């Protein structure tokens, strides 16, 4: 039992890395636009399928990765610029935007479901050798995923803290109206955020299926609650917080899985999200939050 619990720590880090990639994308988007974008899950699925199609066409692995990232970025940017912007212009509030994203999520998920004949497919990706350190066992690919997550985090940190774009982004997330009057090109920044967060969504979807080796239209729905939990637990807009929360969630779900059974790992993840949403101080701001703007 103790051995299981300790090993779960290793798996927890890997799972945490997967969640972190998705959570960083989500929190960038959510922090800036204030849209609780449920269709993010659908975008993750789309990215995963883009890579899968590349694999089916026997294209090199690297091409598949590029496909996933590009699909996610393009799809998110399109949705943001057309649908979300349309409803935001007509004065949709926070909740109305959630409804819009839910509708889009339905369309994405079931559209992909129909196109994929509602089947579950096998996804092959080189897993590399199994490495052993004491009680821990990981494959090379899993290590690579963790490294990718770390690299993404580093890249975003550099972007946010050491570039003009990053500074403008942080300003906009904090005070959208003020940023507009200050001459910050808000429209351009929103575009950039759609592209970056979409790219991360696609990458996260791909990472998920690299780890599970199967793909179906429900990939996004399975993965989204954990991504959402990490982003909100870590405070909307804060990528550092998202990564920390993702690691925590990865560890908790793996530990619950090890000690209680794989079935309860998913339930535990969902449960954490529900608790987070219900108790987060920002969530309880009530009236002030209700006036929060949609920036799209």
């Amino acid at each position, binding site marked *: 039992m103790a051995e299981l619990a300790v090993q779960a720590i290793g798996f927890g880090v890997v799972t945490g890395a997967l969640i972190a990639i998705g959570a960083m994308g989500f929190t960038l988007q959510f922090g800036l636009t204030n849209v609780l974008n*449920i269709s993010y899950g659908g975008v993750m699925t789309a990215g995963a399928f883009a890579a899968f199609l590349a694999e089916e066409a026997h294209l090199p692995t690297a091409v598949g990765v590029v496909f996933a990232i590009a699909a996610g970025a393009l799809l998110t940017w399109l949705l943001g610029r057309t649908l979300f912007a349309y409803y935001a212009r007509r*004065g949709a509030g926070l909740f109305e935007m*959630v409804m819009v994203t839910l*509708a889009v999520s*339905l369309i994405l998920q079931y*559209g992909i479901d*129909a196109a994929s004949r509602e089947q579950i497919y096998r996804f092959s990706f080189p897993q590399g050798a199994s490495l052993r350190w004491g009680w821990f066992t990981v494959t090379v690919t899993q290590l690579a995923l963790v490294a990718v997550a770390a690299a993404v985090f580093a890249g975003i940190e550099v972007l946010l803290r050491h570039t003009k774009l990053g500074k403008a982004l942080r300003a906009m997330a904090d005070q959208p109206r003020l940023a507009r009057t200050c001459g910050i090109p808000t429209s351009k920044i929103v575009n950039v955020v759609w592209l970056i967060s979409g790219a991360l969504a696609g990458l996260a979807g791909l990472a998920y299926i690299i780890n599970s080796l199967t793909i179906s239209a429900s990939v996004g729905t399975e993965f989204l609650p954990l991504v959402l939990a990490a982003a909100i637990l870590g405070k909307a807009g804060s990528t550092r917080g998202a990564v920390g929360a993702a690691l925590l969630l990865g560890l908790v779900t793996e530990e619950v899985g090890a000690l209680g059974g794989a*079935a309860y790992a998913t339930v535990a993840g969902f449960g954490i999200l529900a608790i987070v949403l219900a108790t987060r101080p920002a969530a309880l701001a009530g009236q002030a939050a209700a*006036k929060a703007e949609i920036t799209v």
Partner: protein
Amino acid sequence: MSYYLSTLAVYFFIDLLLAYALNLQFGWGGIPNFALIMFQAVGAYAAAVVSLGPDTGINAFQRYVFGASWPFPLPLVAATVAGGLLAVVVGSFSLRRIRRDYQAAILLIVALIATGLVTNVVGFVNGSNGLTGVPRPLSGVLSGLTYDGYQWVYAAWCAVLAAGGYLLVARLGRSGWGRALRAVRDNEDAAATIGLNPAGLRMQAFVLGGMIAALSGGLLVEFLASWSPAAWGYAETFAVFTAIILGGVGNNWGVALGTLLVQVIFLQVPTFLPQVGYTGLIDALQWVLIGVLWLACLALRPRGLIPERRFRAALAAGAGTREMPASQTFASGDGDAGHAAREAAVPAARAAAVRATPAIARLPVVPAVDRADSVLDVRGVSVRFGGVQAVRDVSLRVGAGEVVGLIGPNGAGKSSLLGALGGQFAITAGRVLLGGHDVTALPPYRRARLGMVRTFQHTSTFEGLTVFENLLAAAMSARGARLRDSLDDSRRQAQASEVVWERLREFDMVPVADSYGSELSGGQRRLVEIMRCLMESPRVLLLDEPMVGVAPHLVRRISEDCARIAASGVAIVIVEHALEVVEAVCDRVVVMASGQVVTEASYAEAMSSGAVREAYFA
């Protein structure tokens, strides 16, 4: 064909019940219940496990709890009770005061958790295999009927229940409780300030809706004889949402129309299309179509085909009501267009009316009280949030009939102090006494019931209610909003309506009685808000920057009204930047800066002493 129609009829009436439940929770209660289908499921499971025999023998292939072989109609009762219990549990943590988008996400996640738990705890209700072999009710008694005949009888039974459901929700909608619920939906803070308990009302709506949804589940499982997680995927809730958004949120007939269009016609017609692609492709695309339909509704007719009905106060004598089309977009604009014409016609008449009516005699007079006694006693109050000390050790006494102005620069803590008095902000130190009663720890709605009401910086009329309803809700307040009285409260409503008409005449607002807040000017909305505060004969009235966004002639009028109100014995505390108003209306001013009281004196003294200048420019 007869089988097909009877099956569709059964489904329609069951879906109708489900739609009424959602309308109650979401349309009137403002709760975005994306876990709705879970309530139908709990009802189905409850009815199934109590009507099946024990899980041995012929039922040994499935594992479930209970197995009590109860006869009809007990399983339906069990279903309804189960729905109520589940609503209490889920509501206790998800109905708290949080952003609606977070709330929607929570409820959606709860539905996913429920599916996960049911599928994985196989001994509970047989996991993903579900339950099968649920006995059809009264099949012994009705064995003389043909299969077809039984289906039609069942359809009629469902119709009866659906009709009952309709009568119930229609009655609730017209009642004081229903109005109070919609007030909470529109503006929780304002509802609290007229004495309504938002959490309690929302929970009641949630539980009632849960029970109705669960009943629909019981009916469905007894018809299908089996039930499994496949029947209640989280996406099913969206079909119901689409039905009520398309048909008309908040309107029972709209909801029925929407259910017919979406659940029956829209989801059945594609099955008649010729087979395209692989078997099941068209079915799979149904959800895509639902999503598209949803987007279209939100864009084109967000209020639905038959929107929530405007309440028309029957008028015995006096001005007719003017039709104003409801706005089609989400944003509620300032309805200046159109009112200007009326405004121009009225002033002369109004001035005459004010002079003519013995206004002071009409306002309720506070029982003779020694005016030296303070009605509102603030002792050493401090308020702290985040890391900021917003209010620091403030003391203040206001007597009946006194008007005290709170002035000072931005960030002085004036609104925070008002929030502390009203109950919106927690008091970290000190006490507040209202007529000798310590209200420091009471929530806003309890303070309101004791006589302390307030207005808000952003005018807080109930946007989904007409002016008349705004006032009526306040007139009936908590006592008139009780669920147990709701089925038969027409007399109480009539009585309260009388008081409302009087108030409307007195403030000369009768022409706008049937208008929505979005159709009025800023000043008119402010007036409505103030009138609403008065309906319950308050002892203390807190006004937070009442003149913001109000046209100058209305500023004068509101000032005069304040004077009248004070004259009838109400203590008023007013936060205001427009110093000419403060000068005209206030007996005393309290100058604040950096959370503390700088000085307390008459306006003239405060101005001449330089204290004000110091406060603003220090």
